[in-house]
């Protein structure tokens, strides 16, 4: 426990040092606030515009979480099909790699054109960007079961369904979580990217991506910084949320989740 608090202290010290440097730089160079607002000004923006900041954060969080959840469900289903039928996997697996390499910035405008602006299409963008890592990792987990474990199940006359539910699925949970961890981080990026294109039904109100565009067009650089901060916080929250779930489900038996229990 002590070791962790020292690490935390170090990280906080670095953060405070950076803030001081930033503030000092501003005082020294007399930059106009629309170029680089001081940390104090950003802090003030967070306080005064807290309600709208939280509203934007909530919209983006909902879209990212929705896309992530949908990608877990759909990705796992696809992975199940891939794991059960080798010929389907051979036919379609290359396309999941394609899905991973398609630049989301290029796809987002298309989706908005097809689905129309709004929360749904932003969620869809987040969903698409999350799908590939889920499929890849879940499939890997489902098919990488040790042959002797399958033999063991066969020796007990296990059905295909029993092998799936009692062997392949639990075995795939750790690598599924690897996929979810990756997806959680990029779901926020996906949602913000989507919002950059999606606009909003009401002027000045929307998710973080929309608000970032709006604030920059208004030269509200202090609020822009506050929004970037909020986006970072959101990414962190997602990441640690998944880490916690991973620990909760796996700490009894899997290596990957053991570190949090030791010491």
């Amino acid at each position, binding site marked *: 426990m002590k070791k962790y608090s020292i690490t935390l202290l170090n990280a906080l010290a670095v953060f405070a040092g950076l803030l001081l440097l930033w503030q000092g730089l501003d005082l020294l160079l007399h930059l106009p606030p629309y170029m680089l607002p001081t940390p104090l000004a950003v802090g003030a923006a967070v306080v005064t515009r807290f309600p709208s900041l939280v509203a934007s954060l909530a919209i983006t969080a909902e879209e990212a979480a929705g896309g992530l959840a949908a990608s877990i469900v759909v990705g796992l289903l696809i992975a199940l099909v891939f794991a059960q039928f080798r010929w389907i996997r051979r036919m379609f697996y290359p396309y999941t790699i394609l899905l991973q390499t398609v630049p989301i910035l290029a796809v987002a405008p298309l989706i908005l054109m097809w689905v129309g602006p709004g929360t749904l299409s932003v969620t869809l963008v987040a969903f698409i960007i999350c799908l590939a890592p889920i499929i890849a990792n879940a499939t890997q987990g489902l098919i990488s079961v040790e042959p*002797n474990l399958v033999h*063991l*199940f066969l*020796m007990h*006359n*296990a059905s295909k369904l029993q092998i799936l539910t009692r062997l392949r699925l639990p*075995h795939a949970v750790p690598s599924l979580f690897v996929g979810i961890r990756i997806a959680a981080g990029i779901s926020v990026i996906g949602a913000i990217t989507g919002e950059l294109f999606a606009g909003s039904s009401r002027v000045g109100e929307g998710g973080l991506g929309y608000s970032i565009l709006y604030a920059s067009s208004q030269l509200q650089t202090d609020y822009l910084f506050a929004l970037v901060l909020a986006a970072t916080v959101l990414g962190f929250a997602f990441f640690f949320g998944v880490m916690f779930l991973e620990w909760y489900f796996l700490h*009894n038996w*899997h290596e990957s989740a053991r570190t949090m229990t030791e010491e």
Partner: protein
Amino acid sequence: MLTLSNVSKSYGSSPPVLQQIDLVIDQGEFVSLIGPSGCGKSTLLKLISGLTSPGSGSILVDGMTPVQARKAVSYIFQDATLLPWRTVSRNVGLGLELENVSRESRKQKVESLIELVGLSHVARAYPRQLSGGMKMRVSVARALATTPRLLLMDEPFGALDEMTRDRLNEELLRLRAEQNWTAVFVTHSVAEAVFLSTRIVVLAPSPGRIAQEITISLPFPRTSVTRGSSQFESFVTEVSRALRGVHSA
């Protein structure tokens, strides 16, 4: 109990792994298969279990095909093959669970077996908390939980240190005295084979075939004292000599 007649097996176009194996094992025997690597001992076990099928010849277990007979057969693998997400008792109960045995009778059976292999104190632990020897005990308990009539073992104690291996060998014989199953046991260790078996089958490599069969007439019960006897020594010498003959050929 087990009849192999004229069994051959080859993979693809490469030379046969096993050629014309004839072997009859009676109820209550403990037969060890021993031989240099590449002689097809593990393949033979896979054939008896029906996990692979022979190229030619026939295998009958209790008058049935290996796949039909699986209900009466348990397999113990080289590694413990435990499910890491299950506790010790849930691992031991796996076979019963897959065979849809009711929860109550499962619980009873599992408890008594865990006690039998001396793991009651870790019944609720997960495999990663156990030593290699304990894991193997769980594996043995799981195999015995379904009350098999035939037990197939593929070098189950090969990865353990010698002390642990000796102790587990003694325990295995104690369990056999209580439960009355027939065993086919693959091993690299001459001493282990002599200690456990009623008969040792020495296999020769390329192609895998039976070179010699040696009946081990050491009296039961066998204990750690048995290993010190001159009779034990002379059997070890005999089997070693047979193995050397196979190696140099």
